[in-house]
């Protein structure tokens, strides 16, 4: 979980970095250049296969771990220990992960699938992703509103998933120096807030016409 988790954290840095180019507010020029680099270059395209493997491993391992841990206590308590001593999101990683996965399926079908199916196996031939974002989030119909809602909730779930997952991954990898533990926990909270807010702002900005 921790190795794939750290790998996916690295992916999020790249993803949020490239997508944040839309906030340059230059009609998507900067963003499309970056997206073109990722889509029309053989190296990111090969790495993408590894990224899918990372996601699938993380998801399968996560569910296997949840099943194993749930089955370690067949008779449950009459009164649950509840929230004492542990944070709710640290106890709800499987639920939060599932919410992120549901969001991810919608997210892939909105952008990645149309883009890659337009490209096929060739490099280049991508769709205008900036226009696609605009089209997906700008409308005021019920489908668009629901899509934005799912995106924002997906980002919130991702934020809480990271708030625990970031520091927990490093603990699992064996970081026990107190200073580094405190530092990594705080970086984890910061990372969770920044990444989830930056992503959530994207559909919201398009919807309210903050970007041209």
């Amino acid at each position, binding site marked *: 979980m921790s190795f794939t988790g750290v790998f996916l954290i690295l992916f999020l840095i790249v993803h949020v970095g490239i997508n944040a180019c839309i906030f340059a507010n230059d009609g998507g020029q900067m963003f499309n250049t970056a997206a073109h680099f990722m889509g029309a270059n053989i190296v990111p395209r090969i790495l993408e296969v590894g990224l899918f493997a990372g996601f699938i491993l993380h998801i399968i391992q996560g569910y296997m*771990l949840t099943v*194993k*841990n*749930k*089955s*370690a*206590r*067949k*008779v*449950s*308590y*009459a*009164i*649950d*220990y*509840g929230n*004492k*001593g*542990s*944070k709710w999101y*640290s*106890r709800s*990683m499987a639920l939060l992960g599932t919410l992120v996965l549901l969001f991810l399926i919608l997210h892939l079908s909105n952008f990645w699938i149309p883009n890659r199916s337009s490209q096929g196996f060739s490099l280049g031939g991508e769709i205008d992703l900036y226009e696609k974002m605009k089209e997906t989030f700008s409308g005021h119909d019920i489908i668009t509103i629901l899509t934005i809602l799912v995106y924002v909730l997906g980002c919130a779930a991702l934020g809480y998933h990271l708030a*625990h997952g970031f*520091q*927990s991954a*490093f*603990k*699992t*990898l*064996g*970081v*026990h120096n*107190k200073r580094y*533990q405190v530092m990594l926990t705080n970086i984890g909270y910061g990372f969770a807030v920044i990444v989830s807010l930056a992503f959530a702002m994207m559909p919201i900005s398009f919807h309210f016409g903050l970007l041209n």
Partner: protein
Amino acid sequence: MEHYNMNLNLKVWRQKNSKTNGEFKMYRVENISSEMSFLEMFDVLNEQLIAAGDEPIAFDHDCREGICGMCSMYINGKPHGPWQANTTCQLHMRAFKDGDTIVVEPWRANAFPVIKDLVVDRSAFDRIIQAGGYVSVNTGNAVDGNAIPINKDNADAAFAAAMCIGCGACVAACKNSSAMLFLSAKVSHLALLPQGEPERHSRVLNMVAQMDKEGFGACTNTGACEATCPKEISISNIARLNQEYLSASLVAEK
């Protein structure tokens, strides 16, 4: 501290043996002194039950001074009851008010099967210790206590980890029934000292293998164990255990 007497309702788990299903039974105890310990209150209840010709409630206890790790009651949804850094035997009745209903259950984990009532079988912990929680010593004269220099920070951390009394509250509190806090305390206190060095790699590998065999869940770093531990074992021991395990997996000779 003000002294008072109280009447209490107890909802206690009764189970004849590991093969039968248990159930909660209600009991009433009266005139319980606030100065009594929780186990003394149970003694009063058991004397009532014996006098009435009923089967007394079986519960684990030994030293009754908070150092042996035998007492193991899950009181109102928390191992060892409402107080911090405290064992059931050192929980005093002033933690409760007149008229309270107290729910008492045994530890719940597949690896800790109920033997009877509130007594669970914690021999899984003994088998984990036997798998590697020891150090080799030379025969002959005892070595001088100060012959091996030990860094003060390491000595302090080792001592803090050695505080673990193996009561199993960490497993009881953990949503995954994981024994990682217990194991991490045992591995840490030997890994931090030069005396633990010869078996360092085999110890952590064997103890983790035994823990997995016993059917405990895996750690997800929620922190419930640390919060409930009567000896305040730090969760950063778990990170040390992970580091010991990772490096041992990479470099152990077999």
